[in-house]
């Protein structure tokens, strides 16, 4: 018995199995608990009342609750990648071999240096940081903030990757009942009897909620309901499953714990259910409130309901001499449970002037002294309760009596758990009679049909006793007590904790009110009330009641802060689910991807594609590889995998008319068999995509887009076709992945292709520049487009995707003696820049129009309309001072950094240098053996030869001369082969 701790009771504990002892470690010490224990109950059984320290003052902290609302008993769990900070000991089931560490203390839990803050509490009032560290200003960034940051933060983030597995699943359910107490079980049964599909989710590992502990025959009532539910095929019961948030249209997020803290289970640790619920029944019960008396944060002061949970559920005595302090009848249950367990209850302190109900009578009958109209004036003890000082509640704290005790069971009344109800817009009413905010059934959260998507039952609805289901007798009214005693002195209020984790006291909230913080949302942020990891579950109502009193207004006038999901913290791993590592997102690979891999390609992401950036040989740097690839292409022949280029078929009687609207240029006049370069703008006039269109037949065009633009451009076309010109007869199809495409580029391109054989005449006469032909190459059906993005003789060969690798390999086999060289995207980029060709995303950034880039030749003057035309007529678009595309020649041989700005004379209103241009593309050109760049410059085309200055922090300014953007083969003769 004593092996699981000196505070384990000889009898009782309905949730533990005394046959199974589990070893675990806390703060370096070996302890034992029982199967069914939570970490908190196991620690309490071992006499470990102190489990952590508070955030601001590092005050000793023991558990005050037994469930999800616990603000104090937060531990670091596990080791290495499985380490998790801030885990609530009260909701963590004990697992054999667990390693746990206390937080927020150094060097040890018992002797913590930060506790010195505790002696300075008068100097750390609400808003301390805001008030103290204002001046001098630079001190904030360089002195105050680093120091505060070092001592701030609760718990430590794990430093290794989480080795556990998580999964997500979807469900569509007619009715989801949240909460497996007696009200939830009943609601689930009723819905199931109506033939609906029903889920019941319960956050703890046990159904029944408080009923088995609090009501006679409670367990039998719960068991009967469970038996019926388990026999219904349309009911799903899930324990250890937390509904964390309710969102629009009945979208409910639910976290199911499958193998928490059991790394050997071989199954995912947690599962995140994404449920579309027809209706959500909120049966989440109520939470007990603390009382605000001086010393209410000393370890051993525990919520009355939690005290009886530890005794009844786990057979653990939180203390041996338990004083009860209350403003309601319910706390008397704790006295009875304690007495039944053989513990002492020296006195019940009841703030009410009378306690005449059945429960107080039962307690009196057991010989317990009940002091009505009384209050706690203070607690004797630092790391644990030693004695309780009693006073009259109506007074200012004159001590009338001191009673020895090692535990105080406090109850300030109950607050319904309305979080899910409120997440999506459900409204609350304040009930003076019950001193609580309860859901207003007339103002529910509504769904897609405009009807209520949630309803509350049981304690969550404000029906705390649920007498219809529990058989409980009526109890006397709760008396609101927000400060105890009623006229407590200022000094006492410095010791009355509202938020136990963040050290927010009654005095702090009153100070905030005095300083003008009248909104509850402002007060929350100023004092940090309710901003702890429990998100104000135990502190909010008490805090806003104190604020209301300080502002001399009724509580509903103050209102609550916003309830936001999640109800309890969600592990990031659960939110990520399986989307991590290699399957974070789908990868798109071309048919030649494997070849690239086996030939040492270094890949870069382009959208979801992976494209070879270059093919470095052994010992070769990427820059060297790119230079080699370019020289090989310019000297002989190279191949580029261009399969990722977007390919969209546009077909129909109105296809030409439609493309004339899509492109700035004229596409309808393109002859069959020809290609034309085109620009696509958005309705704002800005350049969006570019590419070559080929007319396949009288009514069919094949449109090429950029690699990243295929889906976007297809969507753009469909948008206009479906929503604006829906009577035009045009069909589009995105065939990007149906074709593998290889650019065969270089002076020997024709020689190489002709070696493969086929019926396509590749001669300049039969297939001139900007022409295309169809036929067979190397026995593979193919289309050949004579288009060039490098300035060289170039054929882009498209074949069915499943023949792409075959074509690619044949090219490399046939061209060995020509030094045929695979080249990557970087070589492609450099070669296009050498030719002054623009690149969407480099020269364009969503603010650039074609006219800025000298592309007026690609804009039809004849067309009356195209997408973007009207916008390009706006005054700012026609402003001659728009920056225009030019080439930039480095003056000192250094490659210009990408994106740098050219400065002009003078400074702007912020004291920064005025600018007159910026670099959009910049490379070292292996062809020309010098740096090349392009940029947008004020009046650039008229300023040829001028030198611009580009300052870069920490370096000598770069200087570059404005020049023509075409650096190589200005006549364009090479493309003609």
């Amino acid at each position, binding site marked *: 018995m004593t092996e699981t701790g000196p505070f384990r009771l000889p009898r009782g504990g309905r949730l533990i199995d005394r046959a199974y002892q589990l070893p675990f470690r806390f703060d370096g010490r070996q302890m034992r608990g029982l199967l069914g224990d939570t970490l908190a109950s196991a620690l309490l059984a071992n006499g470990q009342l102190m489990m952590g320290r508070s955030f601001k003052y590092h005050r000793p902290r023991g558990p005050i609750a037994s469930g999800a609302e616990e603000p104090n008993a937060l531990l670091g769990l596990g080791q290495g990648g499985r380490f998790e900070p801030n885990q609530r000991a009260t909701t963590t089931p004990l697992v054999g071999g667990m390693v746990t560490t206390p937080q927020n203390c150094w060097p040890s839990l018992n002797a913590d240096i930060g506790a010195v803050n505790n002696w300075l509490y008068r100097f750390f009032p609400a808003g301390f940081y805001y008030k103290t560290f204002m001046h001098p200003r630079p001190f904030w960034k360089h002195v105050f903030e680093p120091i505060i940051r070092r001592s701030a933060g609760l718990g430590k983030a794990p430093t290794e990757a989480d080795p556990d597995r998580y999964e997500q699943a979807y469900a569509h359910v007619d009715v989801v009942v949240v909460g497996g107490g007696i009200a939830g079980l009943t609601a689930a049964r009723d819905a199931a009897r109506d033939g609906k599909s029903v889920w019941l989710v319960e956050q703890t590992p046990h159904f029944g909620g408080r009923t088995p502990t609090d009501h006679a025959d409670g367990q039998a009532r719960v068991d009967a309901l469970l038996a019926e539910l388990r026999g219904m095929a349309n009911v799903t019961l899930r324990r250890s499953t937390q509904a964390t948030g309710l969102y629009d*249209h009945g979208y409910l997020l639910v976290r199911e714990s499958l193998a928490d803290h059991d790394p050997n289970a071989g199954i995912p640790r947690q599962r995140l259910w994404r449920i579309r619920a027809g209706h959500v029944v909120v049966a989440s019960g109520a939470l007990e409130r603390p009382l605000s008396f001086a010393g209410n944060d000393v370890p051993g002061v525990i919520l009355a309901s939690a005290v009886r949970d530890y005794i009844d559920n786990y057979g653990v005595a939180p203390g041996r001499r338990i004083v009860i302090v209350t403003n309601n009848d319910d706390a008397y249950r704790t006295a009875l449970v304690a007495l039944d367990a053989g513990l002492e209850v020296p006195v019940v302190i009841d703030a009410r002037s009378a306690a005449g109900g059945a429960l107080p009578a039962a307690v009196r009958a057991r010989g317990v002294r009940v002091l009505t109209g009384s209050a706690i004036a203070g607690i004797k003890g630092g790391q644990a309760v030693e004695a309780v000082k009693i006073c009259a509640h109506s007074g200012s704290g004159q001590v009338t009596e001191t009673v020895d005790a090692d535990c105080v069971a406090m109850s300030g009344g109950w607050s319904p758990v309305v979080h899910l109800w409120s997440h999506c817009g459900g409204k609350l009413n304040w009930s003076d009679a019950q001193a609580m905010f309860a859901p207003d059934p007339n103002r529910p959260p509504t769904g897609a049909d405009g009807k209520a998507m949630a309803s509350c039952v049981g304690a969550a609805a404000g029906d705390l006793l649920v007498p219809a289901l529990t058989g409980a007798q009526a109890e006397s009214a709760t008396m609101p007590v927000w400060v105890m005693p009623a006229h407590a002195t200022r000094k006492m209020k410095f010791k009355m904790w509202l938020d136990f984790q963040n050290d927010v006291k009654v005095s702090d909230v009153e100070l905030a009110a005095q300083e003008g913080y009248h909104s509850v949302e402002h007060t929350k942020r100023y004092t940090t009330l309710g901003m702890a990891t429990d998100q104000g579950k135990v502190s909010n109502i008490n805090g806003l009641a104190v604020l209301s009193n300080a502002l001399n207004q009724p509580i509903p006038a103050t209102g609550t802060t916003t309830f936001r999901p999640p109800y309890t913290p969600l592990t990031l791993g659960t939110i990520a689910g399986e989307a991590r590592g290699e399957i974070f997102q789908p990868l798109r690979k071309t048919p030649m991807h494997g070849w690239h891999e086996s030939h040492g390609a270094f890949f870069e992401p382009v959208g979801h594609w992976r494209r070879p950036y270059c093919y470095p040989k052994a010992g070769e740097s990427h820059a060297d590889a790119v230079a080699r690839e370019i020289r090989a292409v310019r000297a002989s022949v190279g191949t580029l995998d261009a399969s990722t280029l977007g390919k969209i078929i546009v077909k129909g009687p109105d296809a030409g008319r439609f493309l004339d609207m899509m492109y700035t240029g004229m596409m309808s006049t393109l002859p069959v068999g020809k290609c034309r370069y085109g620009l696509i703008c958005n309705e704002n006039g800005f350049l969006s995509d570019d590419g070559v269109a080929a007319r396949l037949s009288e009514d069919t065009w094949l449109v090429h887009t950029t690699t990243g633009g295929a889906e976007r451009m297809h969507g753009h076309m*469909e948008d206009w076709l*479906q*929503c*604006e010109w829906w009577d035009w007869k045009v069909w589009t199809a995105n065939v990007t992945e149906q074709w593998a495409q290889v650019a065969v580029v270089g002076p020997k391109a024709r020689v190489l292709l002709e070696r493969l054989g086929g019926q396509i005449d590749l001669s300049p006469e039969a297939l001139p520049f900007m022409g295309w032909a169809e036929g067979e190459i190397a026995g593979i059906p193919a289309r050949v487009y004579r288009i060039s993005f490098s300035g060289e003789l170039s054929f882009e060969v498209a074949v069915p995707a499943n023949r792409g690798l075959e074509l690619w390999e044949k090219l490399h086999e046939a061209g060995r003696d020509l030094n045929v060289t695979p080249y990557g995207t970087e070589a492609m980029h450099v070669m296009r820049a050498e030719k002054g060709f623009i690149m969407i995303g480099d020269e364009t950034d969503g603010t650039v129009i074609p006219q800025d880039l000298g592309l007026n030749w690609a804009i039809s003057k004849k067309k*009356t*309309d195209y997408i973007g*035309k009207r*916008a390009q*007529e706006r005054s700012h678009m026609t402003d001659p001072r728009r920056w225009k595309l030019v080439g930039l020649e480095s003056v000192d041989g250094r490659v210009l950094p990408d994106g740098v700005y050219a400065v002009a004379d003078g400074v702007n209103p912020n004291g920064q240098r005025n600018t007159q241009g910026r670099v959009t593309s910049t490379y070292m050109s292996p062809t020309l053996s010098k740096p090349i760049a392009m940029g947008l410059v004020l009046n650039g085309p008229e300023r040829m030869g001028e030198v611009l200055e580009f300052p870069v922090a920490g370096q000598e300014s770069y200087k570059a001369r404005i020049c023509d953007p075409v650096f190589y083969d200005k006549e364009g003769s090479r493309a003609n082969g």
Partner: protein
Amino acid sequence: MLTLTCPYCGIAAEETELQPGGEAHLKRFGPGSTDEEFEAYLFARKNPKGVHFERWRHAYGCGKWFMAARDTATLQVFGTYSAQTPHPTPEIVAAIRAHRPDWQPDWTEATADTSAESLNA
């Protein structure tokens, strides 16, 4: 997160399957329009608290654009309908009026008559 039923394929689609397209039933102004008309077409969007008409595309489904009538405050969906209509259909208007009797369309019946039906064919 919304669910909207695609009127083309009939699937009640999650918001993550859909691409939003902003305000529905904009009249396009092109070359020849005044600066004021074009500015209003490009930038001036309604932002009502209440009934609103929006464009959505069933992007990860059938690919079709459609229209949705919903309440921006309560997120109630009055209906989804074809994108190929210059104004909300009479059925949609009736569905809105059933829940919001005081709501008034801000287009005139005369223009609404340039009918969806003929264009829809």
